C-alpha cells in the first residue's frame, strides 16, 4: 500500500489527508512537531481572550483520526533524504515515505533587530506563541505595556488580544496608515480610527530600532528608530508578516526560493514530493494572485486539489476569483475580486461610508466598460456566491448596485444601507440606477439572469 506522508497538520495538510482518504485507502501519516491534533490557527487569539478553550479550536474530535485511519505522528523533521525517500527526525529516527507532501506553513518574520530573541519577544503564529504570551502577559500587572511591531492582520489581532486583558498597547506601524499597501486610503483611515477608538497607542510611519533587555534577559523597552523614543514594555509582539517555514529543506535536493517551488500541479522538482499551503511558491503567479499566498482558504484549496492528483486524477491548481475576509477589532471586512490600494489606469472607484464611521463599501470598476472588478466591504456582510457569479459573468457595476439587496448577507432585521449607497452613486455618476427587490430566485439560481 502506498504510504503518503504529510509534514504539517495545518489546514492544507489535513485537507489533503481527508480528501486522499475519501478517494483511496492509501496509508496516510501526518507529522507535526507543534501539536498532537489539528487546530485552527486563526482561533488562537480567541483562546487568549477567553472566548474559547484550546480544544474548541480543534475542528475534529480525537477519535476522528483513528476512524479515518489517518496516522498522527509527533516529531520534528530535521532533513529530507530524497534519494532514499526518507525523513530524518530530530530524534535521529528515520521515517520512510512513498509520496511526501510538504505543508509546513509559515513562520513570523524577524529582521535581525537587536534583542529580537529576548524573553517576552514573540510572534503570534504557533501554539507555543500563545503559551508564551500567557506566560509573559497574563494580566496588566505582570505586563505593564506591550509593543507590537508590524501593522498587518496578525498585528491588529495581537493588539486586540492584549487589549481584551486591559494591557496598554503601543502599535508600531511602518506605513503611514494602517495596512495601506493593501487597503485604499479611505478604508485604511477607517481602521486607524477603529484602533484609536479602542485606546491603542497607534504610531504610524515608524520602525523598530532595537529591543532592550533587563538584567534577566527579559525585554524591558524598545527604541523607535525615527524619533529615538524609548518605550518601556514587558512584551514585544513581532508581527511584520510571515514567510515560508522551510529552513529544514534548504539543504535538500528540493528546489526552493522563498518557499518550496511548485508547478501548477503542486509538484516540486522531485518526482514524488509536493508542497501545498503557505510554504508553497508558484513558479509563476496565478492571475493577479501572489506566488506565495498565506491565506487559510488557499491552503485548503491546494489540499483539495492535490488529493485528486495523488489519487490518479492529475489536477492543476486553479483558484477561482480572489476573495478574503478579516476582522479589525469590531469591524468585519470582506473582499471579493480586486480593489487595489491605488487605482490602476483603467479603473474607477466608488466609495461609501456610513455616518457611524463603522461601515463602508468600496467598489472598483472599469472606467470604460463599467465592468465590476472588485469590492471591499466593512461592517456589511455580502454573499460570496453572488460576487463569484458577477465576476465569472463579467457583470457591470450597474448590475451589482441594482442587485445589492441580493448581495447583502447581514443578519435579519439589520438596517439596510442599499438605498443610501445607490443614491450616492447616482449623484456622483449622473446615473439612474434603481435598487431591485431582493429575490430568492436570483440568489439561489446557479446561473445569472438579469
Amino acid at each position, binding site marked *: 500500500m502506498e504510504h503518503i506522508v504529510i509534514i504539517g497538520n495545518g489546514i492544507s495538510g489535513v485537507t489533503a489527508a481527508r480528501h486522499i482518504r475519501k478517494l483511496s485507502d492509501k496509508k496516510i501519516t501526518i507529522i507535526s512537531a507543534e501539536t498532537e491534533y489539528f487546530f485552527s490557527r486563526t482561533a488562537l487569539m480567541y483562546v487568549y481572550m*477567553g472566548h474559547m478553550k484550546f480544544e474548541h*479550536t480543534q*475542528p475534529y474530535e480525537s477519535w476522528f483520526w483513528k476512524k479515518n485511519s489517518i496516522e498522527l505522528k509527533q516529531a520534528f523533521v530535521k532533513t529530507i533524504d530524497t534519494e532514499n525517500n526518507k525523513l530524518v527526525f530530530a530524534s535521529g529516527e528515520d521515517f520512510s515515505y512513498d509520496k511526501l507532501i510538504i505543508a509546513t506553513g509559515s513562520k513570523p518574520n524577524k529582521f535581525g533587530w537587536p534583542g529580537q530573541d529576548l524573553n517576552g519577544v514573540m510572534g503570534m503564529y504557533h501554539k507555543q506563541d500563545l503559551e508564551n504570551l500567557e506566560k509573559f502577559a497574563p494580566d496588566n500587572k505582570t505586563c505593564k505595556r506591550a509593543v507590537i511591531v508590524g501593522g498587518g492582520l496578525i498585528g491588529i489581532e495581537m493588539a486586540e488580544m492584549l487589549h481584551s486583558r486591559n494591557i496598554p498597547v503601543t502599535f508600531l506601524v511602518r506605513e503611514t496608515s494602517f495596512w495601506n499597501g493593501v487597503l485604499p486610503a479611505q478604508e485604511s483611515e477607517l481602521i486607524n480610527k477603529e484602533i484609536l477608538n479602542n485606546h491603542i497607542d497607534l504610531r504610524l510611519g515608524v520602525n523598530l530600532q532595537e529591543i532592550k533587555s533587563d538584567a534577566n534577559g527579559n525585554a524591558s523597552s524598545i527604541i523607535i528608530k525615527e524619533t529615538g523614543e524609548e518605550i518601556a514594555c514587558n512584551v514585544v509582539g513581532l508581527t511584520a508578516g510571515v514567510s515560508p517555514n522551510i529552513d529544514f529543506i534548504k539543504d535538500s535536493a528540493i528546489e526552493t526560493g522563498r518557499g518550496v517551488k511548485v508547478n501548477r500541479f503542486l509538484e516540486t522538482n522531485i518526482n514524488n514530493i509536493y508542497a501545498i499551503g503557505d510554504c508553497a511558491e508558484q513558479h509563476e503567479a496565478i492571475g493577479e494572485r501572489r506566488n506565495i499566498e498565506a491565506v487559510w482558504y488557499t491552503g485548503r484549496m491546494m489540499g*483539495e486539489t492535490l488529493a485528486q492528483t495523488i489519487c490518479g486524477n492529475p*489536477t492543476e491548481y486553479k483558484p477561482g476569483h480572489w476573495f478574503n475576509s478579516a476582522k479589525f*477589532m469590531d469591524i468585519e471586512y470582506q473582499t471579493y475580486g480586486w480593489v487595489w490600494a491605488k487605482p490602476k489606469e483603467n479603473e474607477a472607484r466608488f466609495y461609501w461610508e456610513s455616518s457611524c464611521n463603522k461601515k463602508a463599501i468600496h467598489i472598483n470598476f472599469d472606467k470604460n466598460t463599467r465592468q465590476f472588478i472588485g469590492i471591499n466591504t466593512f461592517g456589511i456582510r455580502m454573499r460570496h456566491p453572488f460576487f463569484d457569479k458577477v465576476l465569472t459573468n463579467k457583470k457591470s457595476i450597474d448590475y451589482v448596485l441594482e442587485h445589492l439587496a441580493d448581495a447583502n*448577507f447581514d443578519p435579519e432585521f439589520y438596517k439596510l444601507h442599499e438605498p443610501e449607497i445607490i443614491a450616492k452613486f447616482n449623484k456622483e455618476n449622473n446615473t439612474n440606477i434603481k435598487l431591485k427587490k431582493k429575490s430568492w*430566485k436570483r440568489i*439561489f439560481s446557479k446561473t445569472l439572469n438579469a
Partner: protein
Amino acid sequence: MKTIKNIGLITALIGFFIFTASIFTGTNNVTQEIFNTWTSQNVKSDYFINKAQQEIVGKELSTFELSSKIIAIAKESDAFEKGQENINWNKIIKVKWNVTSKNFVYPLVRASATGWVSKNQGLFFFLTFGLAIIGGVLAFGADYKLLGPAGIKNNGIFQHSATNRGYLGMIACIYFVAFYMLLYFYPNYLINPILSVNQISKGLSGNGSSQWFLYGFMYCSVMTVFAIRMFIKYRHNNYQLVRTSVVLFFQVAFAFLIPEILVAFNMPWFDFKNAWPLDYDFFFDLGKDWSLMSQGQVGLFMFVWGIVLTLVIVPVMVYFYGKRWYCSWVCGCGGLAETLGDPYRQLSSKSLFSWKVERWLIHGVLLFATLMTALTLYIFFAEIESWKELAFGITAYDVQSSYGFLIGSIFSGVIGTGFYPILGNRVWCRFGCPLAAYMGFVQRFKSRFRITTNGGQCISCGNCSTYCEQGIDVRAYAQKGENIVRSSCVGCGVCSAVCPRGVLKLENGPEDGRINPTQILLGNDVDLMELVNEK
C-alpha cells in the same frame, strides 16, 4: 463604572441572601379555624385529627417544626389505621416524599404563616425582589461602558469560574437545583418567599400567592433583568434585540399576566402559547367538571385553540420560519434559556456522543408523551376512571403522574434549568422537550429555514460551535460550505453573531437547494467543484 457594577452585584446578592434566609425564619400559628378548614378538606382519619389538635393547634411553631410534626403524625396515623381489623383506605394519608409535602402539608403551612414577613409583605418584597432587581440592573447596566464599544465581547468567559464550571458555577448549580426541589416538592418551606409577592397576586387575580405565582413572578423578573443584559451585550445586533424583546413580551404577557387576569374574571388559567406536547397535561382533565370543555364558550375556545395550535399553527409556522419562531421567540423555557441562560451557552457539549444521547432522549420523551396522551384519550372515550387498574397493576393516573414527576418536574425543571451552569442553557430544550422534537422533524424534512453558509469564507475558528447552545457543531458544516438544517437548531442567531468572517446567516428561502452537501467549497476551480460535488 466598575464601582457601580460592584455596588449592583452586592445589592443583588443582599436581595438574594434575604430571600434565601427567609426560608429559615418562617413561623406559624395554626388557629382552630384554619385547622378545621384544612382537616375538612384533607383528612379523614380521626386519629390524625385528635393528635394534631393537641400538638399543633394554637401553638407558635417554626415552619420546620410544624412540617415535620404533620409528617410524623401522618405516619403514626397511617400505622394506626393499618392496624385496624377493617382497614378504611380513605383514612390512610400515604406519606410520599414528592407528594405529601406539597399537597398535604403546604396548604396548612401557607394558611397559618405568621411573623414579620406576613405583616410586612411590601417591605419584604422590596428587600428581596426590589434589591435583586435594582442590583441586577445596575450591574448589567454598567456593562454598557465596561464592555467597550458595541460588538462581540466574550472576553474572559472561559477564564471566569461562574461561566467555566468553576466553583461559582457549581454554587449556582446547587442553588438552582435546591430551589427547584423546594418549589416542586417542598413548597411548604418557601412560605416567606411566596408571601413576598402576595400583594401583587391579590392585585392581579384577587387570590393570594401560591408557589406557582412566585415562580411566574420570579421568571418574569429574572428574564427582564437578563434581557437588559442581552440588550447591552448585543446592542449592535438587531436580530438579537428584536428576538429578545419578543420572547420577553410573550413570557410576561402570555405566560404571566393574561392567565392571571383570566382568573380575575373567573375564567380558567390558560397560557395561549403553551402547545401540546410541551403542555403535557392539556387533555388530563377531559370529562371532569373543571375541564376547559365544561367552562362555557371561553373554555371551549381555549380547548379548540390548543388543538389547532399543535396540529396547524405549530407545523405551518415551522415550515415558513423554522422552529425558532417558537423556541427562541415565544417559548417560556426558551425565553429563560436565552436570557438567564445566555452566560452559560458555551458549556453545551458538542461531541458526537452527546448528539447520540440527545436523539435517544428527546425522541424517547416525545414517544412517552404521545403514548401517555393516547392512554389519556383512550380512558376518556372508553369511560374508564383514571384510578382503575389497566394492566400490571398500573393505572392511567400512575402513567400521568410519573410523566409529570420524571419529565415535567425533574427533567424540565431540576435538571433542565438547575444544570445551566454545568451542561449549558438548553439542557431541557435539547435533550427533553417533546414539542422541540416534534418541530424538529418538521424543520429537518419540510421547512424553508436554514443557516446559509457563505461560500468559502469559513476559517474553522470554532466560535460558532462554541457558542451554539444546542451543541450543534456548526463549524463542521460551515467549513464544508454546507448549509445547516439540523432539527435541533432553535435559531437563536448567536452563531451568526459571533462569526468573525460573516459566514453564517439565518434565512427562510425556497426549499430547493436548502440541503447542499458539498465536498469542495466555492472559490476553488470550477471544474473541480463540478467534478466532486455533482458526482
